[in-house]
């Protein structure tokens, strides 16, 4: 009997990892962007499987829909022609590969080091299948009210379940500042002599 949760997990995990690796190995920055989109979109599926429906929707909306469009936009604004690739030396590849590989081994070791993490509590839980209804609870938590504290049996843990109103406000203000700052940074400086755009590049915007 195939466990469908596992099946879909494997599907999404494979897509995620494969495209993540593709991001690393592809030389063309536009293809990198496409692979990254595919990878992150597959992560959305993983979130749904982990009963994080709101997070998944946000990932899809903000990350895939917003952030990555921005990235692609940046690629187009700065690319010198469509097929520019910037090669690095094999020695650099070796160094980076060693460091990254060491990190990967370390993380994998950590991932399988705890026994309780390797056994799932429920084979196929209702929450896992339906994508738990977290929207209202997340909304209340952002307003500073933890309704899920009622479900926490351990009083010691319940004490630590704080609301998130202040972080929410801080992040809101932070986002505003970031937007203003980004607009300021990216503003075209008309006073300086414009740099001659290389052929085949568009700087229309």
């Amino acid at each position: 009997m195939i466990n469908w949760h596992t099946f879909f997990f494997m599907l999404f995990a494979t897509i995620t990892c494969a495209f993540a690796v593709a991001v690393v190995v592809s030389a063309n920055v536009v293809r990198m962007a496409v692979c990254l989109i595919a990878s992150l979109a597959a992560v959305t599926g993983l979130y749904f499987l982990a009963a994080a429906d709101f997070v998944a929707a946000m990932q899809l909306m903000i990350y895939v829909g917003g952030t990555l469009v921005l990235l692609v936009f940046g690629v187009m604004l700065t690319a010198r022609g469509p097929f520019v690739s910037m090669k690095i030396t094999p020695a650099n590849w070796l160094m980076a590969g060693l460091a990254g590989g060491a990190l990967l081994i370390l993380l994998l070791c950590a991932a399988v080091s705890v026994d309780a993490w390797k056994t799932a509590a429920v084979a196929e839980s209702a929450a896992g299948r339906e994508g738990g209804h977290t929207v209202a609870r997340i909304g209340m938590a952002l307003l500073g009210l933890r309704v899920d504290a009622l479900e926490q049996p351990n009083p010691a843990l319940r004490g630590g379940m704080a609301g998130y109103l202040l972080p929410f406000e801080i992040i809101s203000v932070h986002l505003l500042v970031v937007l203003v700052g980004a607009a300021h940074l990216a503003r075209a400086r008309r006073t300086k002599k414009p740099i001659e755009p290389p052929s085949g590049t568009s700087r229309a915007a």
Partner: protein
Amino acid sequence: MRERMIAEYLTTRYGLPGWLAYGGVALVQCLILLGIMMFAAALFTWMERKVAGRIQDRLGPTRVGGRFGWLQSVADGIKLLAKEDLIPKEADAVLFRLAPYISFCAAFCVYLVLPFSNGWVAQHLNVGVFFIVAVAGLEVFGVILGGYSSGSKWSLYGAMREAAQVVSYEVPLGLCVVIPVMVAGTLDLVAIGNMQRGWGVNWLVFHNPFLFITFFIYALCTVASTNRAPFDLAEAESELVAGFLTEYSGFRWSVFFMAEYGSMYAMSGLGSILFLGGWHGPIPVAEMLGLTYANHAVLGWLGDLLGACNFLFKAFLGVASMMWLRWTLPRLRIDQVMTTCLKYCVPLAAAMFVGTMLWTYALPGGLLPRSTPMGAVAEAPPWTAPRAARGE
């Protein structure tokens, strides 16, 4: 939810293996949706030509398939399929091939969570509204990649305009979507649709004056984010040859167009659920006739069918008005497009948000008295009830 019941029935009754039953049911569902979308695209292509013709004092297609040229779309489709499949030398071939399908997939994915009637939805998602907005935003990738990978400067300009425009218009669009969601208190499209049951005054658009204004902002942003005239800067044939479509031809070109019509229809549908009562007409005919699940399952199903017709008609009206707009208004300049978004739509939508918030705070309940539907209150069909209530 219903598909799971069918699949379970297939496995228990006929002993089909689970993957086959589930997969088969899912496939059938996909095919139905795909059929709807294809048919809608074909219908709208024909309609667009007729509408354009009539508005410009012409007849539009008349010959193919009889009196009104109603086979024109089929003929076009055959022509497009038969065309040579061109890929420019300068193009990035992989991305060039991929781009139309990304657009199409994004436009199509919206239908996965869009309910056509009370519970008639492929995947009943409790964050449906967000999902739709998110996925509809993905359509722009196809356009951008297509424009970029064509290796033509016209395409690139078109793509960049598209990127700037769509990313900007997602902000007021999101705000406009959030306003009815705030009033409804849920992101679940089926629940939002069902709470507008009854007479037309129960529609959210009449809930308060701010929501009424919001509806029009939403309509504007929808036109802009689906790249329709007067916001079709990305294709702007008078300036950019054909924008991001310059290098496309044949089947790939038609896929882009199907995506455009698909997303127009989807966004109109979303608007009709969020503002115009979804599958509930201005007069609760189904309740009047007793077509409810409380009476009989078949009667309830008939009532839902009536609702689906209602929904399809409203979405159709939305598309029709988009066409009307397209052939009436001249195209804006890119700076005007951005000005409309950033200087008018965003502040206005934000103001409507605050206004609705204050309204719901000060006057819970709507502007007009809430009408109660006639006769027995329509019960939600059994598969939309929470799992716990069904005893699972």
